[in-house]
């Protein structure tokens, strides 16, 4: 892959690389709905350090696709390009129930400190203020996938119409669509769930893992130009911050070249704020 003309990288590319690095060679990977950035990350991993990954390209259930571009809707048949065989949808979910799905990527309209995700509703079941689309397969797959990577392109504080500060990373989600490490009542281990839950969180500001004792999100790396104070100002809870925080390793020029070739429609940029996308980072 030629790297001529690759002079800078942008936040979507940095995030795709961070997400790709959560995939190990040989992992079985699936992603279903609303997935431009995960598709980019998975295809990048496939073309770099994880050529033996086993990947179902969305709900079309085509195995190991090699699409000429990534689509704005994951139901598009471009994700069947080069895929063989095309399986039946339930075969993916059966494999996950057998404990053979190593990793999947989930985002959330709300993400809390234990990695619980809300994609169902804002408000309460009796008083729904915003009906979100729903969690697709994340509710159950989150219980039995090996691990999942959480991602968010909106790690920020916004001011609501009422003047309140509104976060994507919240202290507690309004509704648990996908279980993280614990509810207020019980831990994942106490429930005897077979899956390991979320192990990494990749956002537009930095990356996190989870404190082994408290299961609260723990800051691991800061993206270039981001401070611990920025993280705290844009997070609705107190993340664990210790002395091991470092800067996020930059992508290589080759990784960025692969990403731009994979995704000429730049679907991976959807959802980010305009300001975030405008920043250009030096290698």
């Amino acid at each position, binding site marked *: 892959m030629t790297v001529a003309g690759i002079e800078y990288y942008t936040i979507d590319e940095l995030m795709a690389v961070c997400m790709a690095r959560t995939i190990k060679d040989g992992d079985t990977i699936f992603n*279903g*709905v*609303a*997935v431009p950035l995960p598709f980019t990350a998975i295809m990048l991993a496939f073309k770099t350090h994880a050529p033996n990954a086993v990947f179902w390209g969305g*709900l*079309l*259930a085509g195995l190991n696709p090699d699409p*000429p*571009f990534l*689509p*704005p*809707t*994951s*139901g*598009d*048949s*471009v994700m*069947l390009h080069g895929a063989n065989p*095309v399986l*039946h*949808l*339930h075969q993916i*979910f059966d494999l*996950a*129930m057998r404990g053979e799905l190593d990793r999947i990527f989930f985002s959330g309209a709300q993400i809390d400190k234990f990695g619980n995700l809300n994609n*169902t*509703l804002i408000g309460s*079941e009796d008083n*729904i*203020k*915003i*009906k*979100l*689309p*729903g*969690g*697709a*397969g*994340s*509710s*159950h*797959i989150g*219980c*039995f996938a090996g691990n999942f990577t959480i991602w968010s392109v909106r790690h920020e504080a916004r001011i609501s119409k009422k003047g309140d500060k509104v976060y994507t990373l919240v202290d507690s989600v309004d*509704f*648990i*669509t*996908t*279980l993280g490490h*614990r509810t207020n009542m*019980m831990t*994942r281990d106490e*429930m*005897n*769930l*077979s899956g390991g839950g979320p192990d990494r969180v990749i956002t537009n500001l930095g990356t996190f893992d989870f404190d082994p004792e408290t299961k609260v999100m723990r800051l691991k790396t800061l993206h270039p130009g981001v401070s611990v104070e920025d993280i705290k100002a844009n997070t609705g809870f107190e993340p664990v911050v210790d002395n091991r925080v470092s800067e996020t390793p930059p992508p290589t020029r080759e990784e960025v070249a692969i990403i731009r070739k994979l995704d*000429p*429609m730049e*679907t991976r940029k*959807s959802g980010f704020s305009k300001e975030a996308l405008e920043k250009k980072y030096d290698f």
Partner: protein
Amino acid sequence: MGIHSSREKLCSLTEAVSRIENGSIVAVGGNLSAREPMAIIREMIRQGKRDMHSIGGAHGVDIDLLCAGGVLKKVQNSYVGFEADFGLAPNYRRMVQEKKVIPLDTDCVAVLVQLRASVFGLPFMPMKLVSGTDILKLHPEYVTMSCPYTGEKVTLVPAVRPDWAIIHAHKSDPRGNVKLYPPYFADLLAVEASKNSIISVEEIVSEEEMNEIGATIPYYEVTAVVELPYGAHPTSCYPDYTYDRVHLSEYVSLGNRGEEVFKNEYLGKFVYGVKDHEEYLELVGGEKRLGELKKWNESDETWQRLLKEEVSAG
């Protein structure tokens, strides 16, 4: 499935849809932006179907339009929206928030296991343990028990036997042997699990041709077949045509302007304003526009251009 042994399945759209009773449980075929039975759905709205309950996975404009048209009372899907493409489903969202539609949000895995219980003729199926989510609060019927053999905790889900599966496919012969090209999504399972099914197809072919290409869905699972070219529009039906992103962008933008605007400018025009599918196809641009949607396979550049198109502002 019910056994539909008749070898004469061809039917008009009006006649086929008239058989669906109000209050039915309906499994809608296709997925997200792909191969949804939109012409059948528009006819269901025209016929004033009411109080229905959808069951299925990740969907988009199909469920949203069924809500807007007053057909659905309960939505038991795992996802209803337009992903990163256009965001939230405008009518579904509004009607749930106004308590006109009951959201029974579920999970793709649960739906597939529940349909398979119906296929196996069982009242329920165990699945790998799920726990800790609020989805379970919406579904008190999902219960946990210990396996009598190993003691492992498992989750039980009841069978769902839809009254109707409605599917758009590629080809059928007159007896109802249906050819579906990939991706299948969960369509084969939906038809097998349902009591009845209406299949609209791009093209009716002879029994000889179907014997040559091989059927995907056996005729005895099919109640009625309707020939409706472009019957999935505005969703895609690959390899025939891609989705009509111009039409969908207009749909979402009208939906986001509220109930009255959507009723007058979308339903009034594209659903109630046409007497049949042929008139609808003319209204959305006829062969000129529809022919454009077939050009996705001319080149990767053309395909990408079609997936970027939007209705022009103003």
